[in-house]
């Protein structure tokens, strides 16, 4: 009987599966020494089973899948994925509308690719430094601290999702609200960017405590 367990139960000798088709299409002569050794190792060692969210298609984007996972509630991946695709479709529709209405000289400035908009919006929402509570002599101070990339991405996505879930009108659907927020973030406006600025301001106000860090 297999009990569900938190960490991986694979033997350490198992290797990760490789999903990118480009790495298999290179001819043998072009590979470097390390890549040749890697290929020989893969021929001998066992390989882990591929997880369901790993895909080799050109349309799969790790950022988008992470975002869909964060939007998912109680394991309903079907719903989260459909909401995500509706959001991207809505972004595309709005941008196309703007494109067709714009005069000739402004047409190149309008970005129509929803993936580009999504990535740029997330990048604009990422905070640059964060605050962490450090206790010194009984008092807790909010100390400005540099964040890792993963933490920045997580915070950006979390702020976006909470903003869309809480501050919308009862009748608006999630894709429409998300689309609106993403377009605002793309142009550096909107409540998520404001939240990021508030965090930066607090960090700036507390910059005297920066010496409390020990890392």
């Amino acid at each position, binding site marked *: 009987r297999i009990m569900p367990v938190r960490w991986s139960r694979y033997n350490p000798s198992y290797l990760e599966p490789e999903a990118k088709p480009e790495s298999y299409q290179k001819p043998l002569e072009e590979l470097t020494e390390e890549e040749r050794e890697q290929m020989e190792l893969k021929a001998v060692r066992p390989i882990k089973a591929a997880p369901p969210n790993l895909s080799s298609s050109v349309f799969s984007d790790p950022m988008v899948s992470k975002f869909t996972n964060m939007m998912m509630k109680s394991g309903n991946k079907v719903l989260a994925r459909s909401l995500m695709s509706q959001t991207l479709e809505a972004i595309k529709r709005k941008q196309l509308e703007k494109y067709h209405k714009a005069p000739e000289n402004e047409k190149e400035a309008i970005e129509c690719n929803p993936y580009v908009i999504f990535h740029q919006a997330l990048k604009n929402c990422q905070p640059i430094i964060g605050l962490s509570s450090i206790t010194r002599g009984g008092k807790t101070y909010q100390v400005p601290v540099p964040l890792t990339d993963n933490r920045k991405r997580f915070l950006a996505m979390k702020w976006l999702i909470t903003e869309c879930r809480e501050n919308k009108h009862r009748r608006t659907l999630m894709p429409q609200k998300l689309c609106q927020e993403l377009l605002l973030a793309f142009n550096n406006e909107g409540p998520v960017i404001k939240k990021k600025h508030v965090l930066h301001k607090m960090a700036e106000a507390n*910059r005297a405590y920066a010496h409390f860090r020990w890392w």
Partner: protein
Amino acid sequence: MAAPAYPAWVTRWVSGQWRNKKRPPTLRPTRTLALADKVANRREQPTEATCITEMSVMMACWKQNDFNDAPCAEEIRVFYDCVAKAEKDRKNQNEDFLLSRGNLPSSKVNKLLKRFPQITRYV
């Protein structure tokens, strides 16, 4: 005359009991005389916060430009570089404590001692 009542230690002393080997034990250990499997926590020199100058430069830039990121891109890039370098330095420093300053940190010593504990009883 009646026997004079001396305190007990006087009698003992006079009798010479303590001059022979019958002394009370000089050592009365409350715990067993064996080395523990732990070392006390030694406070390493606390390292200073890294990248403060870059951070203050970036914040000054923010104050001038009303917290927009676009005009401050250069300062932000410098800050990120400094943070990455500091992270790498910390990682390297963690691994070569064997080569630098004399003693191991107390956490590593405790891990080793736990693997090879003191034998207190034989079966």
